[in-house]
């Protein structure tokens, strides 16, 4: 488990982090999101011990990073962004060297290197120099160095960077597999990838926490909206239905969008205190049937992570947490 509490970091006059607090529970994959300059890399660098916060603290597996940094670093497997490494070294030698840094020697080191090579599909390039490998393979080497010592905590910065679609799928499966019994924090710009890989998300904006929580809950609980899609026989029937929908009690707004073939798509925003979602769905269904429209879709609007991300970035750093975990407020 990773706990970050009230992290603050300044670079000169720039406040990279201003009181960021969040938790990454074990056995789950947590995504760290934010636009450029939001403070993701600084947060990751503080967790991994590369840099120290000006204020606040980080605890990894119950150990305070400021009190026992070596022990904390031993428990973390880290893949930095763009997987920097020693280009002049053959893959196997590099992994062997990295294993030595983690205190693995002799048989244990050989075994760890072989396992990491197998897990990351590096058999074909194990004797080649890292600098001669493709970006995708370099990324895999970075992943292999991160999992080499079987750490309980994995911190992966842009793990899908430079990978082809097949490799992205493989990496996703690998991360999901590695997450079993581990604490995994993944930072990525590829939002659909985060949506597929992560159970939880932590979003940063301008150095502050703007959302933290279970991904499904965040996506489902963001808006009280229904989406209706129907084919109307005439434009007049469409206009009539729209006017009647807007008049339904509890409906705040209906935003129509014309599509091909006489199909219209409505986004219906409603006040859950005034009308129940199921009742609204029944009312709109009956309304559309009464004007002879063919209903194609009538369901709760589910925002994509991209939509949620953009909305929160626009709103700025005001905490939205789905649960009351310690340290969930900025």
């Amino acid at each position: 488990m990773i706990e970050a509490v009230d992290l603050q970091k300044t670079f000169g006059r720039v406040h990279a982090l201003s009181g960021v607090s969040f938790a990454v529970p074990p056995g789950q994959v947590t995504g760290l999101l934010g636009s450029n300059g939001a403070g993701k890399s600084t947060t990751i660098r503080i967790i991994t011990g590369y840099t120290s916060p000006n204020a606040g603290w980080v605890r990894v597996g119950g150990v305070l990073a400021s009190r026992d940094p070596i022990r904390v670093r031993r428990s973390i497997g880290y893949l930095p962004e763009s997987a920097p490494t020693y280009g002049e070294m053959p893959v196997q030698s590099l992994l062997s060297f990295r294993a030595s840094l983690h205190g693995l020697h002799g048989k244990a080191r050989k075994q760890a290197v072989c396992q990491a090579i197998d897990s990351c599909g590096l058999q074909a390039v194990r004797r080649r120099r890292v600098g001669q490998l493709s970006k995708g393979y370099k990324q895999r080497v970075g992943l292999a160095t991160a999992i080499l010592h079987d750490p309980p905590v994995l911190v992966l910065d842009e793990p899908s960077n430079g990978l082809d679609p097949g490799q992205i799928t493989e990496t996703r499966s690998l991360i999901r597999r590695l997450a079993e019994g581990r604490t995994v924090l993944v930072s990525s710009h590829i939002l659909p990838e985060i949506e597929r890989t992560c159970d939880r998300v932590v979003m940063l904006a301008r150095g502050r926490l703007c959302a933290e929580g279970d991904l499904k809950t965040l996506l489902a609980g963001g808006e009280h909206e229904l989406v209706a899609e129907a084919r109307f026989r005439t434009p007049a029937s469409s206009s009539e239905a729209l006017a009647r929908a807007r008049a339904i009690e509890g409906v705040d707004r209906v935003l129509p969008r014309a599509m091909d073939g006489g199909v219209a798509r409505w986004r219906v925003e409603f006040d859950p205190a005034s009308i129940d979602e199921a009742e609204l769905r029944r009312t709109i269904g009956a309304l559309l049937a009464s004007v002879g429209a063919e209903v194609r879709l009538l369901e709760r609007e589910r925002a994509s992570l991209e939509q949620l991300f953009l909305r929160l970035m626009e709103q700025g750093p005001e905490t939205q947490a789905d649960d009351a975990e310690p340290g969930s407020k900025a």
Partner: protein
Amino acid sequence: MRSFRVAWAIAGREFAALFRVPVGWLVLALYAGLWGGMFVQFVLVPGAPATLRPLFATAAWLMLPIAPAISMRLFSDELRTGSYELIATSPVGDLVLAIGKFAGAGLFLLAMLVATLPLVVVLLMVSDPMPDIGPMLAGYLSVSLLGVLFLSVGLLASTLTASQTLSFLGAMLALFVWLLATTAGRSRAPEGIAEVLALLAITDRLEGFAKGVIDTGDVVFFVVLTGWFVLASSVCLSVRRWL
């Protein structure tokens, strides 16, 4: 024991890396070439005494560009490529890291000196009577001590910048000022400062070794200063974490 093993692993990687990059071979060739040239010019002269003293006496000036060329990539290159992030987030203390890097460069320096041993063999073969081995051993010890001291200064410079060029120039300039101040500068300095400069004079101490005299005080001088610069390098690495 664990720290020693880790430092040894870092030293081994650093030593091997210097042979994997052109700059390593270039430095090796340059040093062997400089020694070879001076050997032919000043030692392999008919009627001249059979001794390597001219080489050992100028060792400080010869080492001036060589040591910074070896040390410039130790941390600067890692900082430039970003691989420093990997070792800095490994479970390795900053002092162990600095010692490992320094030891790797030191091993390379020893390899460089081993490359000059054929000159000793040639001298032994062509000299009659045989030259005294004692001053030669003392001379090699002095060059080793001098080399590692210069490397430690270069190590410190490389922790301060991500630019290998700046690291090289910074270390060379610092060493040049040191040598100049403790030789030519000493005679012009006020008495109190001249005494301090005399204490820090490297060339004076090398002369003793060149004569075949190993003074414990001279050895301690090199060891303590080297240790100080390695320690300062580790402090710089720790300070980096707070920036």
